[in-house]
């Protein structure tokens, strides 16, 4: 297709902020109370990362794979794709991420706690914030409780938590491979929110900077 460079960011956001936030709220009402289970899964993933058992790395990767497949199918492919012609492509990206988590996280070396140091603190902090604090962004922004975005239900906190946990993987290749799609999604989502004039974009941009910092500062863990 010719002429892609003629487009601006806003040209790829064919919906209003009102339609987008209402989509999130309506979807949240439809799938409630799965939020509670998703929050619990997030908490379990962080617990298993911090207090690992021999099988924890693979379990966390498997859990994240299920979450990415679910969010990709249920939200991105079914709900979001109604507003954005690119939604189906994004859904497949989520499925690829689920597959990567299985390949690198379960069949490969699995995830882990990373080496002690600033990178580990950043990555763990990012994962905890994505699971525990991100739902409050909606309320702080003046949106209703139904607009709260939750790990395992909505894509943004799911991607942020994954960035934190993936960056802790003992092997650098695993960390990088599992970070590419979440990084891309957070960047796309931040640009979308900028185009919509939503201040929540700055939360994503700050988180993106943290995630990149965590990846750059990482040191190989003792396996």
């Amino acid at each position, binding site marked *: 297709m010719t*002429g892609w460079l003629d487009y601006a960011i806003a*040209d790829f956001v064919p919906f*209003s902020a009102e*339609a987008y936030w*209402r989509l999130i709220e309506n979807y949240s009402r439809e799938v409630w109370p799965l939020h509670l289970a998703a929050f619990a899964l997030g908490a379990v993933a962080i617990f298993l990362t911090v207090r690992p058992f021999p099988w924890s790395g693979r379990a966390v990767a498997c859990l994240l794979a299920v979450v990415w497949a679910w969010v990709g199918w249920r939200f991105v492919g079914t709900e979001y794709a*109604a507003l*954005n012609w690119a939604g189906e492509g994004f859904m497949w990206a989520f499925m690829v991420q689920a597959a990567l988590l299985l390949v690198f996280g379960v069949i490969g070396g699995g995830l882990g706690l990373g080496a002690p140091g600033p990178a580990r603190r950043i990555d763990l902090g990012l994962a905890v914030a994505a699971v525990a604090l991100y739902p409050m962004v909606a309320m702080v922004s003046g949106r209703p409780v139904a607009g709260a975005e939750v790990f395992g239900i909505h894509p943004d906190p799911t991607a942020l938590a994954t960035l934190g946990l993936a960056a802790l993987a003992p092997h650098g290749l695993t960390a990088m491979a599992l970070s590419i799609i979440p990084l891309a999604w957070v960047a796309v989502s931040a640009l979308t929110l900028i185009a919509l004039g939503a201040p929540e974009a700055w939360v994503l941009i700050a988180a993106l900077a943290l995630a990149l910092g965590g990846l750059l500062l990482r040191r190989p863990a003792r396996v």
Partner: protein
Amino acid sequence: MITRRHILGGLAGMALPIRLRAGEDGHRPIPSTGEAIPAIGLGSWITFNVGNDPVLRGRSAAVIAAFFEEGGGMIDSSPMYGSSQEVIGDGLARLGYPAALFSADKVWTRAVDGDAQIEATRRNWGVEQFDLLQVHNLVAWRSHLPRLSEMKAAGLVRYVGITTSHGRRHRDFEAVMKAHPLDFVQLTLNAVDREIETRLLPLARDRGMAVIVNRPFRRGALPERLRNAPLPGWAAEIGVTSWAQALIKFILAHPAVTVAIPATTRVDHVRENKAAALGPMPDAALRERIARDVDRAI
């Protein structure tokens, strides 16, 4: 019956500074056939892309209903606009597909997917066929334009056109206009984006092509920025009560323009936009003054 010619003749005799009518009932002829269509249509970029939200779908249907209460005309959409086509189809179905509909959509995909996309678009609208199909932003136009021309020859669409927006690819656009017998061209024109007045609008007139104007408000930005600016004295002379109406009259006053397609989510704005096609229009001098006043106020 008062005609445009009568009014122009009368005004020339009186040597008054301003007056030019769009037509006594706000219609304009399509040059290639002479068929008259309402000078105010309805765009759908963003405003009708509301997914399956029942509240926003109801609001969109109310906008479409008001549009037809005010005379109807062209509704324009695109496969690029998310769920807009389905929302339009939903709104039209609720009204029983009014006869005053002039359905306009676009093809926006790779060459090989053109037929499938046009058929999907038709199903989304729920119409038997479109009045107008356009090549969106010249995407794969070398394949799509012959396809649309074949459809027109076969009676599967009544009119064929091309579109651009935001001032993109005007040189290519001009070349296609010169080389192909188009019924419609769709371009961006408003009081601050006037590039097409230099070459493309005169060319459309010379080639007998109808002109659809998109982004008349710069996606709502112009009325928003003019919200607190007082309407100048000329507003009363051309019968406008808001900046939005002045912005529309600025567009319709250009003799090459056939239809403007403002998009909105509000019923009162549909009625306000429709009313702007009626009554006196600014002459060339006042058009320039409107543009200057808008530029100064934003």
